[in-house]
């Protein structure tokens, strides 16, 4: 078979009615056939291996769609519309069942006997161990995420036999099981990987960077970096119900205006992660899912290393001056959930929660007058160029509002390349906007990352001894423990009084579909293509 003939065959089987497709303008999207879905995103995939250093967030979707984990989360409905993963329900993916020892220190997993990799080889516990060893050994983000669930050293992972895998923990934690369902601990075909590993590269980082070797629902048929990624279904997948779409094409288009034009005309079926404005406007004509991102807050952070912000009255003044409603409308276009104007009394452990603050310039001025900086001061408000779509209007509105209480704000736009270093590593920005969202949906997890001294997302250089103790105590405690709720409520009280982070609103992840169904929101904020179907 010459190349030409096989290309013709591919065209014929790849898309039903290929000869009709050039006339796509005239035919409705459904005539395209149920085999192929086209997704358009703004972000670019830069690696097919999540464990590799330098892999960006957008690349995580490959880990999700092409690889399996031991467990996954169930599905629930979102009030409003759409579907979401369910943090409370854990379901089997590659592990058909699991047990926990009485002391909670040993987890035993039974693998599905009919699970195979794409090359036909059976998935064994040895593969699982190799993959887990890899995840905790490569360093960087993957290892840090593994550590959150108490998975730290290769010695903790044991392949008892072909179908039994055991994890030994140092201490029982409510975070371990959920941590097994995050994108990071995926199962790689260790035999194929090792065949392509070298002495300098024992974990086959170079090979897996461009060639995934998994057991997941989709294989990578084509990857043109910066352009597109094409998924092709693995018909032997056992991790869940077989996807309906045979091919899913992920097309990268950086201009949001172009993406909007594409989804409106129906030339693509899914527009992933569209700006709030487009989501608000397209909601009438298309299916738009704006799911509030769990455990994520857009907030304004006064850095405690900046002298005026060490004064609690100044921070409260800012909290009362912020124009919450205007920001929610102008930056978020009403997509997401407001986080202001709640009651000061804390009666539950739901997080994020509405703070007790609201826009009241008189109250703000009172606090400023009481403070040691009644004459006001100058401060730069830093935002990231990459996140300018919500940060810029927010910053402009805050600048104007703070000007009215005597704080003179200049806006500092920091290029994306510099942002992480400046805000998270060096923690040197006096006033900035921040958008951390925790993958594991518990308030203690959020506080662990954002309120504990020296931790990465605590960009305000905040330290409070009580919070330190409370977080340590509650982090691994099961949520139904009677001591859990009071600790969490106390943490809320302190945090919302001291205000190292002033919550503005809870952002939403916006996805528009036009001719596709089944979209499900996930905490990792990437597209799980396995549930999509044409419709």
């Amino acid at each position: 078979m010459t190349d030409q003939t096989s290309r013709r065959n591919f065209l014929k089987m790849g898309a039903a009615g290929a000869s009709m497709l050039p006339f796509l303008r005239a035919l409705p999207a459904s005539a395209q056939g149920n085999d192929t879905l086209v997704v358009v995103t703004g972000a670019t995939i830069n690696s097919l291996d999540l464990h590799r250093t330098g892999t960006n967030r957008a690349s995580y979707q490959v880990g999700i769609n092409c690889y399996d984990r031991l467990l996954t989360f169930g599905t629930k409905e979102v009030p409003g519309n759409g579907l979401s993963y369910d943090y409370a329900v854990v379901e089997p993916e590659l592990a058909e069942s699991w047990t926990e020892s009485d002391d909670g220190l040993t987890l035993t997993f039974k693998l599905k006997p009919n699970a195979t990799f794409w090359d036909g080889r059976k998935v064994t516990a040895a593969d699982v161990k190799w993959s887990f060893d890899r995840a905790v050994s490569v360093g960087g983000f993957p290892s840090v995420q593994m550590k959150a669930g108490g998975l730290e050293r290769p010695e903790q992972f044991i392949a008892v036999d072909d179908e039994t895998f055991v994890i030994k923990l140092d201490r029982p934690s409510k975070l371990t099981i959920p941590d097994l369902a995050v994108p990071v601990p995926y199962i790689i075909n260790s035999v194929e990987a090792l065949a392509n590993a070298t002495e300098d590269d024992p974990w086959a980082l170079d090979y897996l960077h461009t060639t995934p070797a998994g057991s997941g629902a989709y294989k990578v048929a084509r990857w043109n970096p910066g352009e597109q990624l094409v998924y092709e279904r693995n018909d032997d997948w056992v991790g869940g119900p077989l996807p309906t779409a045979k091919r899913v094409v992920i097309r990268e288009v950086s201009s949001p205006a172009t993406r909007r034009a594409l989804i409106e005309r129906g030339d693509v079926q899914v527009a992933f992660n569209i700006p709030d404005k487009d989501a608000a406007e397209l909601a009438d004509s298309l299916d738009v899912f704006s799911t509030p991102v769990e455990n994520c807050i857009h907030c304004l952070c006064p850095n405690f290393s900046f002298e005026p912000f060490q004064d609690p009255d100044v921070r409260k003044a800012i909290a009362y001056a912020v124009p919450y409603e205007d920001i929610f409308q102008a930056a978020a276009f009403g997509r997401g959930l407001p986080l202001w104007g709640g009651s000061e009394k804390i009666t539950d452990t739901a997080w994020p929660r509405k703070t007790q603050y609201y826009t009241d310039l008189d109250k703000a001025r009172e606090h400023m007058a009481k403070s040691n900086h009644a004459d006001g001061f100058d401060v730069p408000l830093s935002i990231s160029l990459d996140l300018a779509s919500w940060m810029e209007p927010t910053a402009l509105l805050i600048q104007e509002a703070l000007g009215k209480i005597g704080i003179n704000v200049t806006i500092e736009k920091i290029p994306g390349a510099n942002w992480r270093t400046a805000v998270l590593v060096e923690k040197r920005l006096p006033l900035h906007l921040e958008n951390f969202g925790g993958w594991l949906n518990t308030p203690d997890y959020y506080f662990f990352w954002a309120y504990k001294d020296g931790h990465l997302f605590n960009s305000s250089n905040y330290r409070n001894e009580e919070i330190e103790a409370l977080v340590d105590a509650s982090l691994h405690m099961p949520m139904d423990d009677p001591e859990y709720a009071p600790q969490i409520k106390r943490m809320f009280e302190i945090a919302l009084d001291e205000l190292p982070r002033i919550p503005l609103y809870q952002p939403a992840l916006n996805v528009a579909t036009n001719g596709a169904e089944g979209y499900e929101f996930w905490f990792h904020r990437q597209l799980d293509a396995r549930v999509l179907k044409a419709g």
Partner: protein
Amino acid sequence: MLTSFPRLRAILLRLAQAIPVVIGVVVISFLLTRALPGDPAVYFAGVAADEASIEETRVAMGLDKSLPVQFVRYVGDLLQGDLGQSLSSGRPVATDLANRLPASLELTLTALILAVVIAVPLGILAATRPGTWVDHLCRVVVTAGVSLPTFFTGILLIYIFYYLMGIAPSPLGRLDFIYLSPDHVTGFYLIDAALMGDWETWRGAAKQLVLPAATLALFTLAPIARMTRAAMLTALSSDYIRTAKAAGLSNGTVLYRYAFRNSLLPVVTTLGMVFSFALGANVLVEKVFAWPGIGSYAVEALVVSDYAAVQGFVLAMALLFVALNLVIDLLYTTIDPRIGFGAQ
């Protein structure tokens, strides 16, 4: 031997003159990229890295050494053809460039051809009717095209022709996903598809080219039209044209056989300048149309401070210009035999 091949000697001389330029380009691009904000070590160390692991990564990447040492290492790699690894794509910069350069070249060349096809007749038209309203209209139209930012024109064209009227294909890049890219021979889809006889793909690629090429062409109309007009005016007012007319030659012959041929030289010079100018303006057009070319590659690299990629891009462009100037010089001699290679 060289004395009996003046052309060869001239080419070698030009090449020799280009070497110090290339050296200058290497130095400047090195310094420029080192001055970029952001720390590639942080990027490479990954999300959630702390100070210690960043420092480790920095040492591993050799970024803790002094600038001169880094420069020497860089030049050493260059001489072996190693342009370094791109941080964001994780692949050798040389591979990335080889993949993306044909896309930009195809776009720019198509745009240039389009511009020439429109601008040269416009220029000739204006030259044959100097001072009339036709002349002024040509000038206004052409100047208007060059006065708008390319990204604005691009988005407007998408809005009108794709979104409102639906006659342009979706601005999804070089080829709609239903087509497979033709087997790689030159990297130019139009040429490769034609070589394979795959006319469906050829049409698909051509359709995608229309809007971005038109945007770029609009921007380059002005210099070409104006230069054509000026050169034709000069040619038309010269003695030999008067003689030709007196001798009774038809207008057409006078215009095309004599005047136009003689005005080719400045037009070709302008073309060269416009081509290099267009390669720079490419950056904006590629961003709007999601064109996977070298311009969008450079912008993405710049934004994440991907040193190797930016350096590689700048170097590739500079070498391209040098080659281009050489080609133009050679074209000169073909067009105008008076331009000799001997001493002045």
